[in-house]
Structures are given as structure tokens and as C-alpha cells.
């Protein structure tokens, strides 16, 4: 009976290749792999082609899905190759690490609650776990600056694997002797691994192969005491855990996605694994293809030169083969004319590689996950890690369904897609109309956890979203409720809409805060306006919207008095939002009432000056007051009787938004000018910042035009508009000639307008 321990690096094509060679010559009758025993039952899925790496074993607590651990496997991971070896040679394979049932039982408060990616025995992570950096010392002793480079040269790209594992064992043994004992968790894990080995021995296996992180190798090799291990392992708390396979991605295997464990260039390693003989040529050809696809020159002759340069560089640096750094340098020098930008492309698409694994349907998963996958297939929306824009045309059935799916996920707080609202506004105003929705999609592998977590709300996305919305609605205030209602409408949750409407009605009836009413209004208006596009019943919403708006109208005059500046600014923002939303509605009665209210607020002296100014502005735009009236209001607001700060606030309200509309209000400018001139030096200094702020929102040309306007007005003694006395008289006969053309364009009758 023999036990052979293979210390490996978790993701390394060289380790994997050496391991396969060693296993082939050893022909073990059982293989024990460092990993969670909960995954044993899932190993059979690795047989056949269904499970395509990169994939990860996910172990989570069903009661707390956020407490989870991932065990990623790439095709070049030694563990993966060991599993495949076992399956193809009918050798039993087991995971031998301390069960996650124990590891995940630890107090969640004590650790970061974010899911931990398992980093067991990862050499790159050593520095974190033991005092100092013994492996760094090893690398330094070898005269290398870069750990990755050292490992790649010494282990990964070694042509002859014989003696490799013995050497690793010896090096690690020396390091462990230096580093001293690990922490409690490490000891438990190693004890459990030893116990698993003894168990296999007892079961009568003859040739036992153990595959574990290099760091653990010495601890598992040689005789061990069952008693001392049992002492470490007794009295451990356990929880129920579930395990499943989930797709993983190269992006997540790479270092820069923020995990300590991982490899810098998974794409490069996969390439090395696939075709080690022609690694150099294959890599440069693939890079050239990529560059060509992106429209960059990469002629065949240059490919040859790049290969030669790569080989020469390796020779100059006394390396047997060009490594990734040599190849990158030669590609940059020969194919990219020294520029760095195309290298980013190669880095992203080749070195890391935009690869995502697949998991067969036979792997068990929670119902919500299944439903999501069904929907993804049906709607041809694939989960990809690269960011992708999606332009949905809501008039098409497929796109509408896609939108519904994304909105449902959004309601469930599963952020796969982000609605590009700003871009949609610009796009709408340019050409597209309201039938388009712009999304940005980016899948993260952790989203699976959220999906599992939301399973408690229902077994299909629709059910879960409905239940979740209703749960959220219980605690929501009025604006939140209407947000949810809007969300439910666009997500086509007809079941939730009715109950939400009831809630809205009930809340609105007792709402005392006008600000809530105002904030609740825009989402509701959206529901009414766009509900039809999506085929939702919108008509039942309209009466509620109208009632809500009426309430807001009644409350507003009271809500606009005795405000401080900050509250006034808030009210103005809410009012302008509500005013814009009102435009969406086809309700002339409401429009009329809104106009009247604005006019009234503009004239009511008890109202905060900021609100007053803004109302005047809106009234002017809606033509409910004329210039004479505006000039009168301006004189009142800016009169010396009031305080200078009130005047400035009024001005600020008035000038919100574009300045062009005000440019032709001569009376206003005269009033403004005389107000400014009347200010004494001290008040002027105090008011200046306020006035400046009021004007700061305008474009430079607008500001200049305003300044010129004031200068001109002061020059003309009468103070009257220059248009009235300076305009050229209209030649009616000549003007009439244009009318037929205009009528043709506008589709009216020229004679009727005469």
C-alpha cells in the first residue's frame, strides 16, 4: 500500500501535464483531491462533454446563500485533470478537504460576509497566511523578481516532469519548517485531509494518489497520528450546505478581478495547455488574427518576424522558450508599431480571454435558476461577462419579453442589466421615439448567489418578482410605492399591479406631505403614458393619478409658504419633475389647473421667493402671464422693500433652465437693472454670490447676450424694446407670396389663413 502526494499549483498547465503523466505511470486505485467533500456527488457530471470549464463548484448555505464558497476549475487545473483522469480510467475520485459544512458554520460576523473564493494552498496567496513571505524568499534566492515568472519557468514550462513533485515537496518542507505552524483553520483542514487518507487506507485501497496545494503536501506525506487529528477535529459545528456546479469565466480566474488566488493570464495558460508544441507560433498567429479582425494591419510577413523576434529575445534572456512577456513585447514591437493600445485588446481577449464555461442541465439547481436559464434561452439573451449594450424595440414581441425579463430581475435586485435612462432621454429626443429601451448587460458569476437567495420568493421569475414587490411595498412610502408600481407595470406583473394600486390609493388619501405626492406623481404618469406600449391595463391607473394630482394641487400653496432655502429648492425640483410628467398625460383639465396654480403661486407674496420666481418662469413659458405682468412681478420681487436675499432667490428661481426664453423680456431686464443699481455697496457684496449662482447655469453665449441686452437697454433712453421702434415694417404683399409654400408644408389651406 502506498500514498503518493502531489503538490500542485491550483491553476497551472505545467502542473496539470506533469500530474497527468505521473498519474498515468502510478495508476492509482483512488484519487483524493483537496476540495469540499460535499462536491463528491457532483463529480459524475464532469464525465462526457456537458460540463465545460471554466466552471466552479459552489457550496452554499441554503438558509443564507450569501455564505458560500467557490472552487473554480479551468481545463488546465491539475484538479480538473485529476478528476477527468479518474473518470476515464474508472478510478474513484473523492474530495478530502474539511467539509464546507464546518467551514461555513463559522460566525458570519467574524468574517467578511462576501462569498469567499477558496484559496486553499494557493502559492500566490502564501504571504497572506504565514508570517513573512517564505516563498518570496525562495524566489529571491533563485534570483528572480517575479514569482509568476519563476514558477512558470521552474514548474509550468518544464519539459521533463520527472522528479518535479519530489522537488516541490522538498522545497515546501523547508519552507514550512521556516514558517512555523499555521492557524487553527489550516490545521483542521490538514487533519481532515490526513483522516481521509487513513480512511481510504482502511477501505483497502492500495495505491492512493493525493492531489493538493503544494503548501499542504508535506503535511500529508508520511505517517500521521489519528489521535492528534481527532483532537483537532472534535466538537466542530456543522450546518446544512448545498453544492452545485456554476459556470465560471476566465475573467474571474484572472488576478485583476480582485481575488488573491488566481492567475494573471488564464487565456495564455489555456493556450499552453492546448498546444504546448506550437505555443509561440500559435499565440502570435492568434494575436494577428485578432488585430486583423479589429481592422489593424497584421501581415503574414510581420507574423514571421514577430516569431523570430520572440525566439531571439528568449535566447538573449537565456530562456528555453519565449514566455508571455517575450511574445507580448515582440507583438507590440513588430505588429503594433510600438503602440500600447492594441495590446490592451490582446490582453483582454487573448491573455485573459472572454471565455465562460457551461453547465449541463442535469446538474441540480434551484427552480428560480432553472426558470432564469429557460428565459435566457427562450429570449436568446446569454449571460456574458463582457459588457454589452442592448437596444430593445418594444414594438417587437421578442424585445418586449426581454425587457420584461430584465425589469423583473431589476425588481428582484439582481443587477444583470442596467437601464441607460440618460442615454434613452437623448436618444428619444434625437430620433428614436419612445419605443426603445437601452440596456447595458453584464453578468457576474456571483449573481447566481442572488438568484438562489431570491428563490424563497417564488419558483419563477414572475412569481418571485411579484412576491418580492409586494413584500417591499409593505414598508414603502408613497413615492417608493409608485416607483414599485411603475416597475411592476414595465415588468408586466399584473398580479402585483392591482394590489399596488390599492396601496397607492390608500396611501395617497391619507398622505399629508405634498412632497410625497409630488414625487409619486412622475412614475404614475409613466405608467399611464407607456403602459399601453407594453399592453398593460393603464386605464385603471388614470383615475388614481388624477386624484393624486388634485391632492397635490390643493396642498401646494400651503406647502410653499414658510420654507427654508433647502426645502424650497426641493419643492422646486419636485414641482418641475411633476410638471414634466404632466406633459405625458393627455388630461387637459389637469393642465389647466396646473397653469392656474402656477400663476397663483407666482403672485402669492407669502410663497417662498425661489418657488415664486420659478412659477413666474413657468407661467411665462405657458403664456399665462404677459411681459407687462412679469415686469410688474419683477418690480415687486426686486423692490427695495424686500430683503436682498429674497430678491436673489426669486431671481434664481426665475432663471432656472435656459436663459434664451428670458432674453426678450425687456421689462424684466429693466427691473433687474434698476434693482441692482439701487443696492448699496454692502448689500451688493452680500448678494453678488447669489446672483452669480443664478446666472452660472447659463451657457457663455447666453450670458454674453444678456449682458449686451442690458447695456443696450440702458443706452436707449426710453427703455423701450428696440424691436418696437427699430423693426422694419412688414411688406404684406411679399409675405403673402410665401404662404402657399408654407401651407403646402404644413398641410393647411393657404386661403383659409388669409
Amino acid at each position, binding site marked *: 500500500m502506498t500514498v503518493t502526494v502531489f503538490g500542485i499549483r491550483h491553476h497551472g498547465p505545467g502542473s496539470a501535464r506533469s500530474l497527468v503523466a505521473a498519474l498515468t505511470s502510478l495508476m492509482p486505485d483512488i484519487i483524493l483531491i483537496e476540495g469540499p467533500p460535499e462536491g463528491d456527488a457532483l463529480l459524475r457530471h464532469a464525465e462526457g462533454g456537458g460540463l465545460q470549464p471554466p466552471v466552479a463548484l459552489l457550496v452554499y448555505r441554503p438558509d443564507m446563500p450569501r455564505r458560500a464558497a467557490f472552487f473554480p476549475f479551468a481545463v488546465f487545473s491539475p484538479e480538473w485533470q485529476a478528476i477527468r483522469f479518474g473518470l476515464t480510467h474508472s478510478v474513484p475520485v473523492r474530495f478530502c478537504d474539511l467539509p464546507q459544512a464546518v467551514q461555513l458554520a463559522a460566525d458570519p460576523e467574524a468574517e467578511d460576509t462576501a462569498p469567499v473564493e477558496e484559496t486553499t494552498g494557493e502559492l500566490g496567496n502564501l504571504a497572506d497566511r504565514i508570517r513573512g513571505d517564505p516563498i518570496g524568499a525562495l524566489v529571491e534566492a533563485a534570483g528572480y523578481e517575479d514569482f509568476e515568472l519563476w514558477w512558470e519557468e521552474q514548474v509550468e514550462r518544464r519539459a521533463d516532469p520527472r522528479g518535479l513533485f519530489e522537488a516541490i515537496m522538498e522545497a515546501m518542507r523547508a519552507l514550512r519548517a521556516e514558517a512555523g505552524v499555521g492557524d487553527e483553520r489550516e490545521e483542521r483542514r490538514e487533519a481532515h485531509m490526513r483522516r481521509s487518507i487513513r480512511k481510504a487506507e482502511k477501505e483497502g485501497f492500495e495505491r492512493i494518489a493525493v492531489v493538493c496545494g503544494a503548501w499542504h503536501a508535506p503535511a500529508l506525506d508520511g505517517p500521521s497520528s489519528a489521535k492528534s487529528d481527532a483532537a483537532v477535529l472534535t466538537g466542530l459545528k456543522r450546518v446544512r450546505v448545498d453544492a452545485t456546479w456554476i459556470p465560471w469565466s476566465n475573467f474571474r480566474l484572472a488576478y485583476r478581478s480582485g481575488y488573491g488566488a488566481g492567475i494573471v493570464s488564464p487565456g495564455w495558460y489555456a493556450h499552453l495547455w492546448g498546444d504546448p508544441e506550437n505555443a509561440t507560433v500559435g499565440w502570435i498567429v492568434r494575436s494577428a488574427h485578432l488585430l486583423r479582425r479589429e481592422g489593424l494591419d497584421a501581415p503574414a510577413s*510581420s507574423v514571421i518576424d514577430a516569431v523570430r523576434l520572440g525566439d531571439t529575445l528568449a535566447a*538573449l534572456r537565456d530562456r528555453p522558450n519565449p514566455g508571455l512577456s517575450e511574445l507580448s513585447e*515582440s507583438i507590440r*514591437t513588430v505588429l503594433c*508599431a*510600438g*503602440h500600447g493600445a492594441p495590446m490592451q485588446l490582446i490582453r483582454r481577449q487573448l491573455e485573459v480571454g472572454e471565455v465562460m464555461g457551461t453547465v449541463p442541465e442535469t446538474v441540480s439547481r434551484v427552480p428560480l435558476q432553472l426558470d432564469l436559464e429557460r428565459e435566457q434561452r427562450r429570449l436568446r439573451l446569454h449571460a456574458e461577462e463582457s459588457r454589452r449594450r442592448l437596444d430593445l424595440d418594444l414594438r417587437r414581441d421578442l424585445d418586449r419579453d426581454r425587457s420584461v425579463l430584465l425589469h423583473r430581475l431589476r425588481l428582484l435586485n439582481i443587477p444583470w442589466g442596467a437601464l441607460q435612462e440618460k442615454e434613452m432621454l437623448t436618444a428619444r429626443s434625437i430620433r428614436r421615439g419612445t419605443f426603445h429601451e437601452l440596456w447595458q448587460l453584464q453578468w457576474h458569476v456571483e449573481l447566481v448567489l442572488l438568484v438562489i437567495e431570491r428563490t424563497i420568493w417564488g419558483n419563477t421569475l414572475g412569481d418571485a418578482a411579484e412576491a418580492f414587490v409586494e413584500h417591499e411595498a409593505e414598508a414603502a412610502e408613497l413615492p417608493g410605492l409608485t416607483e414599485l408600481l411603475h416597475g411592476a407595470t414595465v415588468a408586466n406583473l399584473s398580479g402585483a399591479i392591482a394590489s399596488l394600486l390599492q396601496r397607492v390609493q390608500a396611501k395617497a388619501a391619507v398622505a399629508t406631505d405634498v412632497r410625497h405626492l409630488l414625487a409619486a406623481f412622475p412614475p404614475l404618469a409613466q405608467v399611464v403614458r407607456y403602459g399601453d406600449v407594453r399592453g398593460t391595463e393603464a386605464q385603471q391607473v388614470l383615475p388614481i393619478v388624477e386624484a393624486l394630482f388634485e391632492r397635490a394641487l390643493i396642498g401646494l400653496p400651503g406647502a410653499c409658504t414658510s420654507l427654508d432655502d433647502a426645502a424650497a429648492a426641493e419643492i422646486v425640483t419636485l414641482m418641475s419633475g411633476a410638471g414634466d410628467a404632466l406633459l405625458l398625460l393627455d388630461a387637459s383639465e389637469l393642465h389647466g389647473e396646473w397653469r392656474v396654480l402656477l400663476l397663483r403661486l407666482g403672485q402669492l407674496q407669502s410663497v417662498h421667493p425661489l418657488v415664486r420666481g420659478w412659477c413666474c418662469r413657468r407661467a411665462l413659458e405657458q403664456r399665462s402671464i404677459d411681459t407687462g405682468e412679469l415686469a410688474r412681478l419683477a418690480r415687486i420681487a426686486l423692490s427695495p422693500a424686500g430683503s436682498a436675499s429674497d430678491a436673489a432667490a426669486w431671481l434664481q428661481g426665475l432663471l432656472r433652465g435656459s436663459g434664451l426664453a428670458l432674453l426678450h423680456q425687456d421689462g424684466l431686464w429693466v427691473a433687474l437693472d434698476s434693482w441692482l443699481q439701487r443696492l448699496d455697496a454692502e448689500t451688493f457684496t452680500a448678494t453678488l454670490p447669489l446672483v452669480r449662482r443664478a446666472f452660472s447655469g447659463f451657457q457663455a453665449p447666453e450670458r454674453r447676450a444678456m449682458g449686451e441686452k442690458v447695456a443696450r437697454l440702458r443706452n436707449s433712453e426710453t427703455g423701450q424694446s428696440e424691436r418696437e421702434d427699430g423693426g422694419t415694417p412688414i411688406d404684406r404683399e411679399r409675405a403673402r407670396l410665401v404662404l402657399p409654400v408654407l401651407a403646402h408644408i404644413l398641410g393647411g389651406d393657404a386661403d383659409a389663413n388669409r
Partner: protein
Amino acid sequence: MIEEHSSVLAGVARARSEQQFAEELAELRMADDRQRPPRWDLSPWAVRTYLLGGTLPSGFEVSPKYIGNARLMEIAISTLATDRALLLSGVPGTGKSWVSEHLAAAISGDSSLMVQGTAGTDETAVRYGWNYALLLQSGPSEQALVPSPVMRAMQTGRLARIEELTRMTGEVQDALITILSEKTLPVFELNTEVQAHKGFNVIATANSRDRAVNELSSALTRRFNTVVLPLPDTIEEEVEIVERRVAALGRALELPAEKPALEEIRRVVTIFRELREGVTQDGQTKVKSPTGTLATAEAISVINSGLAMAAYYGDGTVRAADLAAGLTGTVIRDPVQDRVVWLEYLQTVVKERDGWADFYRACNEML
């Protein structure tokens, strides 16, 4: 041979690299036992040691010629070893010509086959010209042919250097295409051609600040391997470069001044880097950048002129006042914009800095 060189060198304003570092090259040749590409004086490994410095087995110290990213030099050497033409590109003052000259000196033992690219450089500088007296007397003949440096390099299998490639007009640049791809130079008038010997290659330099001067055609770009030389990464690197070059130049100019204190060099380099990067070294204060490049080479010339000032008008020790004039002139290239930038920098950064009061006073007096 070294003595012979020294005697030649005595009266020369600036010795060529292979003359200045003749001893190093000779030692390297002696120690070099690795394989050399055809007609190379040294093996690629020895060339690398020559450029980056090192200690030979005999204990002989080779001084570093290029301080910075060693990998870039390795790429450059490998490029030439694979028989590809090398284009060194970068902003002014990053040592393109310096590297090119030393490469030619180490590989061919001769850095003199050089063409300076200007708007007025015509084809004869790249191909060949004629001795018109002979041409008129006896028609086209081998004797009447005046070979260009490139042609001579082809005939002898050496490296030709082309400085400021992008300043040459497109036609002249394109004359290089045949030479680089076919390694041959046809002489139509004599119905013959000059075939390049093994070892022939071209090192060109191009200034990447010179936008759209004469952009290289894609056909020509493809025939070059491009290595972009960056500005020094760290202040230590830059201080070391400046110190070495100032010391070398000071010897050449035989200035009676003391070598400037490292502290002064560090201050000048700090000012250059801060203005160039638009932020102070501690990363705390943003500063505006002037219009000039403020390359390392300019820092060297500032220190050098300070050295001269100190030697002839001062007490022989470089002080802030000696450096101020050169510094002000280098920073202020545009009399309006750069003056504002410089003043702001003096007021907000230099004035506040401990121990920089002398600098602040001296620079303020210059304005």
C-alpha cells in the same frame, strides 16, 4: 590602439562612442565567447552588457549607457539580431540618438555611418550621389559614384543610422523600402546594383512629438520594429542619468568647477518632473505644465550651463543662482503662457518648500 585613439581624441570636441568607450569594447570583445551574428563585433549578450553595464569575469566594470527599462534594450538588440530594421521612437530627450549611436558602436564598431534627416535631405543621402566633374568628363562610372552612408554600410555590412526619419520627405523615406526589403540598392545609371553584405541593418530614430511632419507610410512602418523609449520612470533613475551625463560632459568641456552636488541635480530633476507630470512628487498639489517637453536632456543642459556659470562667474561651486538662468530659459518657451505657469509654480510650490528659499529667490530675480 587605445593610445592611438586617445591621441586622436585629444583635440576632438566630442568623441564618437566607439572612441570614447574603446577600452570597454575591447574588454568585452575579449571576454565574449558566445555566438555572434554575421559581422557583429560582439555577441548580443555582450552588446546588452555594454548598454546596460555590468562586471566582466575579469572584474572589469562596464559602465551603463542606458538607464531605465532593460527589456527595451533587449528588444532593440534582438531586433537587430533578427535582421530587422529598428525604429526608436519617443519624445525628445529620451535618449533615442544616444541608444542608436551606442548600438552601432557596439555591434559594428562604427557609429559614423549616419544620415541626419531634415526637410532638405534628398535621395542622395540615402542612395548615392555623383562626382559631377568626373561625371561630365567621362560619363557615369564607378569612380564618379559618391556612395551615401547607407550605401557604404551595405557594402561593408555595418549598421547605418538615420536620425529624425520623420523629418525627411516621403520620397526619401520610400527610397529606404527597397533597401530594407530587398537588401539591395540598384544603380540604374550603371545598370548594376549594390547588394548588402550580411550584417547590414538600419537604426532610425523618430520624434513622436513631431506630429504629422512626414508620417511614415505603412509600407515603411511594416519594415521597422518600433521600440518606444519612455521618459525615465522614477526620480532616482532620472537623477542618475543626469548625474552620469553631466560628469561625462564636464570632463569633455574641462570646466574648472566642482561636480555639482547631488542635491542640486535632484532639485532640478524634481522641478522638471513636477512640471512635466503636472503634479508635485508627493502627489498633493496640481501644477500646470508648460509647452516644452522638459526632457531629461534639457535638465542635463541646465546643470551644465550652471556648471559653466559657476566656473567662470561664480566661486566654482554650483549654486541655485547659477542654475536659475538656464532653468528659467528652459521652462519658459512661450513668453506668455509658460511665464504664468512658471510663476505659479514658484509661488505655490517652490516658495513653500523647506530649504528651497535660495532657489525661489534666484528664480524670482530672473523674471
